[in-house]
């Protein structure tokens, strides 16, 4: 196999649709407080606070069900319109992917997807912050 063969054989683009099976990234820590999940990504020192809807979706991303199946379950449990729920779940999962919170969409994978990867997030997300200091020393 020649080097040019590799360059001519691009990685297949991952499509997030109803058949996609999402799985939470193992590098994301999460806790839930009063129906809101707080996600912490140590490698980037960023934190996300999810609204209740996104929290429910996040809790379902165990790698066992497709988006369509997840949406169907949520729709049944909350007695909500299936089409609306499916749209919401798709939107939220795509946001999770854009923020690097899913297996296969972590930062080293995002480069593979190219520059058109959506960049909207589930919330603004906290920027990585420098270590806190207690003021600056007096000028001497």
């Amino acid at each position, binding site marked *: 196999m020649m080097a040019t063969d590799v360059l001519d054989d691009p990685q297949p683009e991952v499509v997030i649709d109803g058949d996609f099976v999402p799985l939470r990234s193992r590098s994301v820590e999460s806790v839930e*407080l009063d129906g*809101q999940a707080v996600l912490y990504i140590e490698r980037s020192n960023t934190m996300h*606070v999810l609204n209740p809807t996104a929290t429910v979706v996040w809790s379902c991303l165990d790698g066992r069900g497709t988006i369509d199946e997840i949406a169907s379950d949520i729709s049944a449990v909350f007695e909500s319109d299936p089409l609306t729920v499916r749209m919401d779940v798709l939107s939220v999962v795509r946001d999770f992917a854009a923020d690097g919170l899913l297996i296969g969409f972590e930062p080293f994978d995002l480069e593979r997807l190219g520059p058109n990867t959506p960049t909207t997030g589930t919330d603004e997300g*906290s920027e990585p912050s420098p270590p806190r200091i*207690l003021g600056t*020393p007096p000028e001497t």
Partner: protein
Amino acid sequence: MSRYLTRSFRAIEHRFTIELDNPSVGLYLDDIFEGLIDAREREAGESDRYRLVSVIGPETTQYRLDWCGMHLATCAELELAVQYLLWHINQLAVKESQKHLLIHAAGLERAGKGILLPAPQEAGKTTLSAALVQRGFGYLTDEAVAIRVADQRALAYPKPLSVDRGSWCLLRNLEPEIPPELLRLHGEQWQVPPQRIRTDAIVASTAVHYIVSPQYIAGSPTKLLRLSRAEALRLLAENSFNFHRFPSGLKLLADVVRLASCYRLTMGSLTVACELMEEVMTEDRGDDGYRRA
């Protein structure tokens, strides 16, 4: 040259003594650090040694500050050297603690219930803390709270309250009484020992029942708004000195926040802010969850 050695002090895990050639300044430091006296004082050999001495030159006198034999600063003014010393002690207090999760927050207590006030500098933590201690609240710190892993209790760092010049008019009765020759040590801050406000002010540790993030905005209405526990957790993490390298920090903060009532406090009036804080402690809230004044 006279030599003065202060008592041994403990700032969270930073243990230190100060050697000086100026007994008046030594007595002043012993006074303001009274709340930090190290219970293991007789093991002074384990303490870091600061050394603050005057360097008399042909035309001027300068002030040299060393720490553990290493030169930190040489200052033209004694007050600058003292300010540097206070700054360095604070830095090492938060840097040297590996056992606790440290939050940039004031810590208070009332009837066994702890209050964390996480906020960046200049938000009004110290001014609010001083006013509440005058009203009978217990004092843990105006700067950095240590959260103990085993039981999520907030531990005290009862340093002197550093009251900025802008708040002096609000806390006039807390003006330190020091010899005239040391008045220049005030600089832009009073250092007020908590026991000077109330002899029994210091509380060693407390369970956290309230998280209130203050923000002083001149001329604004004073109001207390509910904060979700998830947002309070993010606030604590953002105001932490060592969250990003502390094992299981997220879970620890979640455990702290889980049983706490959480608020944002916008302050235009110190008096009203204190009244709202006292009401919070009695859970006297309106149906809309907030009060304005």
